[in-house]
């Protein structure tokens, strides 16, 4: 401690860290604090002033539409989270564990990532000609003869939002799971097989527990993105599905900063609970 050498090294780390830390405090922590603060400001029709009040909070909980948006957000989040897991896990199992060749596994993973090189908004938009009344799915189903009249509920409904979000976010579930599965020592599985364990038993006793950190990391990614969503619901629901994010956008659009902030705070709390809950299961820093 007393030696100068140690001290210079300390200032050295400090100098390296300071710009990044200051940046995050000024442009991340301060803005979030700001949201909390402004949620207690007084909103008039055209302006906002810093007289503290609980009006906006009262308005939020008094409005069926706003509280409804909270429940819609939670419902959609749970559905999409479950779907990304159900749809993604088998794919991850194949890519991460069952494919023997490293090259094939890498190629498959790259194939999963390539769509991300197209603009997010265009990826969302691409579902419209897919799901629409005259969309690809309806055309195919009619050609096969499964249906006579096109299914209209496919587009501009909650279903289309769920399908869209699942497709866009499932890769964030597949990636971490495949990564964890790839790290499993194949000898353990071979040993278990030699001892006469069937695949089901091996899966539940060895494979699944070892992939669990991947599931949790994937779930954190998906949750964070779905809870903050507004573009997919805006583009694919025809304004029928309103999430907390959509409310923030409309409120800011009409300069209702206080209400937007109230929704922002609620979203922050919701996220905090979800992420903290997941982090209790797995230590993110150790997994990276």
């Amino acid at each position, binding site marked *: 401690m007393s030696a100068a050498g140690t001290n210079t090294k300390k200032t050295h780390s400090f100098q390296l860290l300071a710009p990044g830390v200051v*940046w995050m405090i000024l442009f991340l922590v301060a803005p979030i604090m700001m*949201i909390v603060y402004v949620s207690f400001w007084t909103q008039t029709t055209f302006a906002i002033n810093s007289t503290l009040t609980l009006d906006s909070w009262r308005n939020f909980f008094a409005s069926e539409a706003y509280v409804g948006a909270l429940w819609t957000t939670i419902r959609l989040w749970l559905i999409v989270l479950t779907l990304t897991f159900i749809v993604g896990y088998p794919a991850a199992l194949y890519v991460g564990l069952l494919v023997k060749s490293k090259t094939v596994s890498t190629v498959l993973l790259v194939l999963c990532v390539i769509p991300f*090189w197209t603009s997010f908004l265009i990826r969302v938009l691409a579902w419209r*000609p897919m799901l629409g009344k005259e969309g690809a799915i309806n055309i195919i189903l009619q050609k096969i003869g499964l249906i006579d009249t096109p299914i209209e509920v496919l587009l501009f409904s909650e279903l289309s939002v769920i399908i869209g979000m699942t497709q866009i976010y499932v890769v964030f579930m597949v990636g971490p799971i495949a990564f964890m599965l790839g790290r499993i020592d194949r000898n353990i599985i071979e040993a278990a097989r030699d001892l006469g364990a069937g695949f089901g038993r091996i899966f539940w006793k060895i494979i699944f527990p070892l992939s669990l950190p991947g599931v949790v990391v994937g779930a954190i990614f998906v949750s*964070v993105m779905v809870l*903050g*969503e507004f573009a997919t619901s805006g583009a694919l629901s025809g304004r029928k599905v309103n999430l907390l994010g959509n409310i923030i956008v409309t409120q800011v659009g009409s300069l209702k900063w206080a209400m937007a902030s109230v929704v922002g705070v609620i979203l922050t709390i919701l*996220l905090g609970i979800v992420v903290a809950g997941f982090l209790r299961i797995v230590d993110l820093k150790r997994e*990276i």
Partner: protein
Amino acid sequence: MESKVLKPVLAVYAGLFILFLYGPFIVLGILSFQQGPEGGPQFPIIEWSTYWYKHLFGLTPPSRIAPLPVGEALVRSLTLAFMTMVTSTVLGVMAAQAFRKRFRGAGLVFYLIVLGMMVPGVLTGLGTSLLANNVVGIERHWWSTAFVAHVVYTFPFAFLVMLAILNRFDGSVEEASWSLGVSPITTFRKVTFPLIFPGVLSAMLFAFTLSFDEFPRTLFASGRDQTLPLAIYGTFSVEIHPNIFAFGVMTTLFSFALLSVYGILMALSVRRAKKIAMQEDIS
């Protein structure tokens, strides 16, 4: 036994999964060749044509469908992505470098940085614009407020990439350099940086693409002038035409070009080393 059944079943499933990921693109690609200007953004294809691609570049006679306002937006997006890339990579390399030594509060700083990628864009965007609008009292611009919000988002990615690279970096070459009388700063420039360059390249790529495509933060924080994602978002509310599909195909191709440049840069250094090694073997 079960695995023998399971593997092909899962292989088929993985195929379907890839199809699920690509389906909308295929449809989008097909519809971008819809006849114009009467053909709409849906099936059936009236007649195959490249009308909408020409429309995109302003090569078609004027019609009731306005061309996409992408020209200036594209330039802005590229500039913004470049600024963000440089800033977040520099911050990321510096922070990751500091994390090579143990220090008190490392856990806290780690989570503070990672928070930037965890907080949804709506919140960062809202908070940044509140701060700019109601406290500092400045106008929002893509190059100021949106820029700082972008870096908040991309810096953590650059940081994590560099952390992974530096974790595997053997520090004895740096010590060797110091013992030869070379200062730590020159050592970083001449030894550390060249050796971690592939990682830096990945961090830059990450930051660039994330920023180029960033939408929610930009929506709140960029003010009057639109970036590319905002321009696309603008077409959502109005009627959509196949020109947006053609544009989607174009941006995808652009992304691939960028990815190829990255791939070539990465492969070049590796191949050069191998080539020399082979010549040595022959001689």
